[in-house]
């Protein structure tokens, strides 16, 4: 039963009633299929309950019924805006479980792919955020640069969305001819393009008023709520897995971890913008330092032979067939591996019972965990601010609902 209460100015004639408003599940600004049950008093939010599960595909159940390598393409479909990092988290977890290390060049190639993925994910996050708040031009600009990254990924693995590039023990193929040059061209051009976005938004009065002081979360609360990635760093917590638990070759690059001060939507925006610049710097350094050598580990027991070998060598073809058809048996044990994905910490827990299928795979999806902060961040704000709060968390529902 709705409660009738007097409004704040004490005017007893004018009464406002608490109403429940269903936002979504297909509302464009909920970034996917989220049903948000908003309890409102007038335009003010009393409570915001996220209702999810419309997309639930049972990824973890599927994983238990597939061979280890067969689950890699499924991880693409989690955060479909950053498939490379989803792949990476999973293959690194399996590599940890079986205890193999990949060659140097493979690590650099993985870094390049992951950082380009971070840029493309942040471009869409910031672009869609602008779109949600009425700055339509920005999304067009963001897609222009995103297309350049799509072209690079198409060169790498032939796909423009579900890039199945990482594989257990390395990557599916070395950098193709011409990739380095085009990638360099992109990272040279990109900082100027980021300046353009900032010219449109960062000093824009409407943008500032819609984001500054909105959805504030303190550092302590952000940690308590489990926020990760730019959503956490916006609150001033300098925690980035690339720096704090370096994986691949991240410890060899010079880059900054941008943090905010106030923990509001604007700080989360600025973190993403600065992260894009830093990611471009990392790609540039990785291209400079890229060593020669193989990209895949030479461990025939776990790693399939290269495509070239399969077409020229009968033994390699048989070996490939055996691995694809029967998989491999890792030791009994359990591991948890997490990496810094664009949305935050993506972690894979794998429990192995010694058979060729994982006993349990649990995906710690950053969008899912970040989403529970919609309620505390929105309380006391106006209805229109909820849109900014959702955009600032950058949820992707493939990952939330997994």
């Amino acid at each position, binding site marked *: 039963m709705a409660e009738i209460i007097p409004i704040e100015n004490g005017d007893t004639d004018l009464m406002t009633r608490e109403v429940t408003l269903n936002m979504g599940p297909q509302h464009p600004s909920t970034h996917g299929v989220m049903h948000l049950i908003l309890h409102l008093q007038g335009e003010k939010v009393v409570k915001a309950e996220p209702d*999810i*599960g419309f997309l*639930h595909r*049972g990824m*973890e*159940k*599927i994983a238990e*019924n597939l061979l280890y390598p067969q689950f890699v393409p499924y991880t693409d479909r989690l955060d479909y805006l950053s498939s490379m990092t989803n792949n990476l988290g999973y293959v690194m977890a399996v590599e*940890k*479980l079986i*205890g193999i290390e990949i060659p140097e060049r493979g690590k650099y190639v993985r870094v390049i792919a992951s950082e380009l993925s971070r840029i493309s994910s942040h471009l869409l996050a910031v672009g869609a955020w602008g779109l949600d708040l009425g700055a339509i031009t920005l999304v067009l600009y963001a897609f222009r640069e995103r297309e350049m990254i799509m072209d690079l990924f198409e060169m790498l693995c032939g796909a423009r969305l579900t890039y199945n590039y990482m594989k257990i023990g390395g990557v599916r193929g070395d950098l193709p001819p011409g990739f380095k040059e085009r990638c360099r061209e992109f990272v040279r051009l990109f900082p100027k393009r980021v300046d353009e976005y900032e010219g449109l938004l960062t000093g824009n009065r409407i943008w500032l008023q819609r984001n500054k002081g909105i959805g504030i979360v303190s550092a302590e609360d952000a*940690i*308590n*709520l*489990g926020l990760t990635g730019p959503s956490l760093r916006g609150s001033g*917590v300098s*925690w980035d897995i690339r720096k*704090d*638990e370096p994986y691949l070759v991240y410890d060899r690059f010079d880059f900054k971890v941008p943090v905010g001060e106030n923990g509001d939507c604007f700080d989360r925006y600025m973190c993403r913008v600065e992260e894009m610049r830093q990611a471009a710097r990392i790609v540039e350094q990785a291209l400079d330092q890229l060593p020669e050598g193989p990209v895949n580990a030479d461990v025939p027991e776990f790693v399939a032979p290269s495509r070239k070998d399969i077409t020229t060598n009968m033994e390699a073809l048989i070996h490939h067939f055996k691995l694809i058809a029967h998989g491999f048996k890792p030791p009994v*044990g*359990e*591991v*948890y591996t*997490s990496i810094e994905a664009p949305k935050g*910490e993506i*972690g894979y*827990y794998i*429990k192995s*019972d010694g058979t060729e299928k994982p*006993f*349990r795979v*649990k995906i*710690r999806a950053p969008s*899912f*965990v970040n*989403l*529970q902060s919609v309620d505390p961040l929105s309380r006391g704000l106006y209805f229109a601010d909820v849109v900014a709060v959702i955009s600032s968390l950058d949820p992707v529902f493939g990952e939330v*609902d997994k």
Partner: protein
Amino acid sequence: MDEKDLEKEISSQKYSTLVTKLKGRFGRSILETSVFRGEVTHVVEKDVIADVCSFVKRENDMQFNFLSDVLGVDSRATLSCFEVVYHLYSIPFKMRIRLKVRVKENETVPTVTSVWRSADFAERETFDMFGIVFDGHPNMKRIYLPQDWEGYPLRKDYPLVGYKDEYNPFGVEKK
């Protein structure tokens, strides 16, 4: 890893805090400890899980202030129980630890939402997928599936294709 290797690992500086201190404080409530691929796992009695979590969060030389995840594992075939696994991270000390509790069917586990608010969604997901109820959770209801859904899909005896009903003609017949 055999006992000798485990002792060697535990005696190293990295693990002394994670293992010795916790065992010293909770004694017999720590049922098992193992190290695999550099990851420390403690199996603790379910009644003390919230206390253990509070302890490792507040202790000065641990400060596990971040709860990465809570998840369930259906180990009924091997251990005759479910496992609830907690992944914790210490932002100040850059360490990770894994805690586990074992729970029989129809038993409940104390919630850790009072220690970390982020346990809210994760515990709801564990309940939704395994049917493990967390005592004291502020909103213990399904998170992915409809509220009237029958069964818990990530249990090993739940069929991959689901049970047959009016929406799922290719499912498995319920016994």
